Each structure stands twice: as C-alpha cells, then as structure tokens.
C-alpha cells in the first residue's frame, strides 16, 4: 500500500524532444492517495494507457519521476513495483487451467501451495469462476477470460495499487454491472489504491471518489463527480460529462451581459474587461427550459424532440447556434417555435476553453 506521486511527468514515444506535439503525455503533477478510488476518464488516444503503463513500470517516462511513498521508483522494473494491472482485452495463459492462471502471480513470487490454494479458491468464488476452476482457460467465453484477468490482478493482497485499463469493455452489460459492484465492494474491504481507466462516464462516476479527466495528453480537471458536472473547468469536460453534454456557445461578453448571435443574455456574474481570446458560454441541457412561444426568454426554433424514456431531449436553434434542452417527460409543446429560459446561476463562461469566474452580483 502506498501513495503514488507523479512529479513533472511527461512522456514522448519518440524519445526526448523539443517539440511539445511529440509528447503523448504533457507535463503533469499529481498525487494518488493511498487507498483512493480514482477514475481516469478521457477520449481515445488522450494518454490514459500511457499514464498507467508509466505507473506500473511497463514504460519509463521521458521526463519526471514516479514516487511510491517518497521512494523514487521511476526506473524500477515492473516486477519489483508490486503493482497489479488489468488490460482491456483478456490475457490468459492458454495452456493453464483457471486455477493455475489465478495462482500464477503468486507462484512466480515463490508463495507456498498452502498459501496459494485457499486464496485462489476464495477469489474464484467471488468472481463466480469456481465451477470452471480445473478446466483449461482457453475454452472459456470472453467474459470468463476477462474475469480470470481480473482475478490475476486481485489475487495478491498487498499490492501498492491496482490499475484497471478499461477492463469491462468486452463484458456484456448485465455482468458488467455485477462485476463493477463487486470491484467496488472489494475496494471497500481491502482498501487498495485503485485507478480505473474508462471511456464510460457512468462507470467513472459510479466508481470513483475522484475523477481525473484527461484530454490531449493533459489533465484538464480533477474533481468529484458533482464538481465535474456543476463546474467543468474546461469546455471539454462540460462536453464529455453529461448526456447530452454541455451546450457551448460562442459569445461576446461585457460586464454581466453575454451576446450570443446578436441576442443578449443577462448573467448573474459580472466579468472584468476580458483580454482577447475565444469566449464561450456553457450551460447544461438540464439548466435550460423550453416554454411556449411569447414568454419571457429567448425565441428559438425547435428542430427535433427525442423521447428517451425518463425525459425528452429537444434540439433547438437560437439563430445559428444549436442547443440541447432536457425537458420533463410531460411537457407538451405545439408548433415549431418556443422560448428558451436559461438558468443563469448555472451558466459558465470559458475563455480559450478554460473556465473563468466573475464576481457574483
């Protein structure tokens, strides 16, 4: 068990370079608390796997250091780091039985049979693998194979951290849900540090105490699921978290007045004279309301309404800007025009994609 600190870490697959574009991982500083449950969220190619591989020692970073409790392990080989990592696609040893697969990490570390056997049987029980325990792993389904991979990650009790690299991608939804809650309870019980990479925001948000959002090789926000939802610090976070994502509208700003495509909106915060840059207004679909035409608000054209069960999602056009609005199931609207009401308490202003805060009026 250890806390993990990344110090001025950066990685380029092309070796040391002056060109910042070569870096798959831009300079970052970060500490993972001992026993924390973290989710690493981001689009494909943003460097999530790279970051995990650096922590586990499969990759040596181009720059910076990795510390496990104050001890520098940057160049320590994987085998000596006492880290478990589970990969996106199942890795099993074909010629071994399920039991031997699960026992493999312990056997390699010279544990005795008396230690290994009860542990393997216990874990197989938790993962629902007990009935296949003595059959060849090769012939099992993809689900079962991934459970074996998970099992090999969980078999060692005193690991510094367990890194999950999108482990549930190949698993079908029903079982996914089960395994997810099982992992969660295992984490509660054993308090290992857990870093969980995923594309899937629901997975990230249900799993983690803290979510780290990455974009283009950099960390754009670290926070609780609520913070990511309420106050995205980067337009990407707003867009990526939530379904549908935050509406991001280019605007002009003066004091507490934002002008979108010639239509003025009064905000509840006032901003000082802004330096030049791209100014955008972000507001979540949950914080918009669509009312009958002629009411107090912004006149919009209704393009499309999708009923997704719990609520409806309307696509509306405000002059040339398109927005999504979440409406309660019962709302009835006639005609193709409506009035958009913005809850300005939840409207954020972004300068060059980064959140800026004004003074509350």
């Amino acid at each position, binding site marked *: 068990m250890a806390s993990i600190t990344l110090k001025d870490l950066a990685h380029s697959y092309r070796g040391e370079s002056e060109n910042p574009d070569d870096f798959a991982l831009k300079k970052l500083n970060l500490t993972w608390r001992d026993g924390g449950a973290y989710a690493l969220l981001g689009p494909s190619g943003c460097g999530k796997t790279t970051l995990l591989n650096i922590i586990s020692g499969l990759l040596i970073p181009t720059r910076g250091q990795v510390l496990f409790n104050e001890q520098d392990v940057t160049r320590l080989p994987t085998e000596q780091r006492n880290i478990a990592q589970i990969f996106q696609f199942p890795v099993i040893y*074909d*010629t071994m039985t399920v039991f031997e697969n699960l026992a493999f990490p312990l056997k*390699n570390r010279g544990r005795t049979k008396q230690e290994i056997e009860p542990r393997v049987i216990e874990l197989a029980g938790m993962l629902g693998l007990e009935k296949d325990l003595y059959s060849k792993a090769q012939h099992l389904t993809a689900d079962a194979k991934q459970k074996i991979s998970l099992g090999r990650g969980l078999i060692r009790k005193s690991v510094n951290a367990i890194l999950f690299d999108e482990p549930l991608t190949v698993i079908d939804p029903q079982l996914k849900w089960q395994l997810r809650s099982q992992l969660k309870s295992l984490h509660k019980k054993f308090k290992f540090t857990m870093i969980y990479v995923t594309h899937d925001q629901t997975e990230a948000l249900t799993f983690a105490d803290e979510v780290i959002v990455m974009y283009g090789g950099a960390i754009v926000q670290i926070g609780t699921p609520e913070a990511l939802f309420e106050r995205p610090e980067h337009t990407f976070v707003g867009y990526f978290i939530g379904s549908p994502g935050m509406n991001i509208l280019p605007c002009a700003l003066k004091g507490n007045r934002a002008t979108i495509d010639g239509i003025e909106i009064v905000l509840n915060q006032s901003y000082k004279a802004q330096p030049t840059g791209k100014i955008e207004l972000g507001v979540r679909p949950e914080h918009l309301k669509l009312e009958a035409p002629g009411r107090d608000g912004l006149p919009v054209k209704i393009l499309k309404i999708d009923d997704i069960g719990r609520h409806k999602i309307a696509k509306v056009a405000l002059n040339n800007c398109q927005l999504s609005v979440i409406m309660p199931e019962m709302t009835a609207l006639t005609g193709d025009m409506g009035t958009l009401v913005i809850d300005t308490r939840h409207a954020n202003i972004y300068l060059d994609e980064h959140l800026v805060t004004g003074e509350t009026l």
Partner: protein
Amino acid sequence: MIAKQVNQKAWFMVLPVFLIVAFSAVIPLMTVVNYSVQDTFGNNVFFWVGFDWFRDLVHSPRFHQAFLRQLLFSGIILAIEIPLGIAIALTMPKKGWGVPLCLVNMALPLLIPWNVVGTIWQIFGRVDIGLLGHTLAAFGIDYNYTQDPIAAWITVVIMDIWHWTSLVVLLCYAGLCSIPDAYYQAARIDGASRWAIFRYIQLPKMHRVLLIAILLRFMDSFMIYTEPFVVTGGGPGNSTTFLSIDLVKLAIGQFDLGNAAAMSLVYFLIILLSSWIFYTVMSNVGEESSPTKEGGGA
C-alpha cells in the same frame, strides 16, 4: 427450412479435379504399382510375381540399413533444427531496421537450389581447396568427408541445418509476431520469469507453426536426395546412402524395376503414415481440442 435438393449434375463440376488428380497422381502411381507386382526379362514381356518384390524388400538388410540411416538423419536434423530455429526466432528483433535485414538473411539459404547447396558444401568441405576443409586441416583436425563416414555425416547434417533451419526460424518468427504486446506486459505484471514467458506464452502460441515446421522438415529430410548425392554420392561406402539415394541406385543403377517399384511404394506409405502419426500426435499434445471446436481461436 431449406429442402435439400439432390442434383447429380454437381458431379460434373468435380470431373476436372478427378481428371487432374488421375493424371498427376493416380496414373503414375499405378505404373509403379504395376511394376511392383511383375517381373520382366526384357523385350517388354512381363509376368505376374504377386508380392514377391515386397517380401524381398522387407527382408533385405540393405533396405533396413538405408531405412535406419534415413530415420537417424531425420531424427538428428529435427533435434537440431527445431530448437535452434526457435532460439534464433526468439532473438530476432520485433521492430526497427533489423527486421528486414534478418528476414532477408534468413530467407537466403531457402532460395538456393538443392544441387547448388550440394555443390557449395562439396567444394566448401574439400581438404585441398575448400575453405572449411582446408582450414580444419591446417588446424590439424582430421576431416575428410570422402573417406571418413563420421565426417561425411557431419557434413551432410550441417549442410541440411544450414539450408533449412531458416524455414523453422521464419515459421516460429511468424508465430511470435502474432503475440500481442499485452501478453508480455501481463507476464511482467505477474512477475513471470523469462522461462515462464517462453513456456506459457511463446511456446503455446508457436504450437501450430511448430507442428507445420516439424512436419515439413520431417517429410523433406526423409525424402532428401540431391544434396547428399552431390556431396557424398551416398558414400563413403554406403554410409550416407539414404532411402532415396538407394532407390535411385536400385532403379537406375541396377535397373531393378520390380524391386525399385516395391520400394517406392513402401517409401511412400512410410512417409504418409509417419506424417499422419506426427500430425495426430502433435495436434493432441497439450490440448484436448483444437480452437476450431470453440468457434474462433486465440
């Protein structure tokens, strides 16, 4: 449900294949079968002898010796080429500029015609002008493949290793390249030793190509003719007279057509049988069923 329609016309579609097989295999084979059960005193007059030739053959010490020599040869070259091929494939780079270099180097011996290989080694090993023979002689090592059976064997075996290990290497290399990185990464996480990686990841993934390599090398070496014929001509004495060389001596040297025909058939059946045994044994080693049974493999 689709009702099955019986349509005999389909047989006509198979006809060309039948014809090709008939002309390429069955008919030539039948002439051999024909010779193997008849005898002649010339003038194209044949008379029936039944299985006499076969009886002679299985009781002939000359055939036994050639057969044992052949087995020994195939055994030795398999025992060397397979582990050596695996070892070389394991050390070959997986990426970078070294890859094409290694591949081309490996493919070179395979592209040289059999009799050229024979000629190369024939000259290479000569004590008077050959680089190898002369050098060894200069070091005072008594090496003369034209007189010493052991030297002749060593020459023929090394020649075969030189010529054909590449095939094993290339097949194994292809098998190794198909292993995703994640396997090696997982092995490092699991703390596997170099040996365990080989034993539990690389060897199982090479299993299929190794089967092919062993089969090919076995059949090829069992039928080897040109190279030893060029180098040693089957000598000194009969020490490197393998089955095929013996067969040619019999059929063309002595014009013993009946004997030779019987031997050809037995030879053919031996190869067929041992290949089948090899295949059955190898595909059952280490796994109870093939990936085809689970519908898609690893």
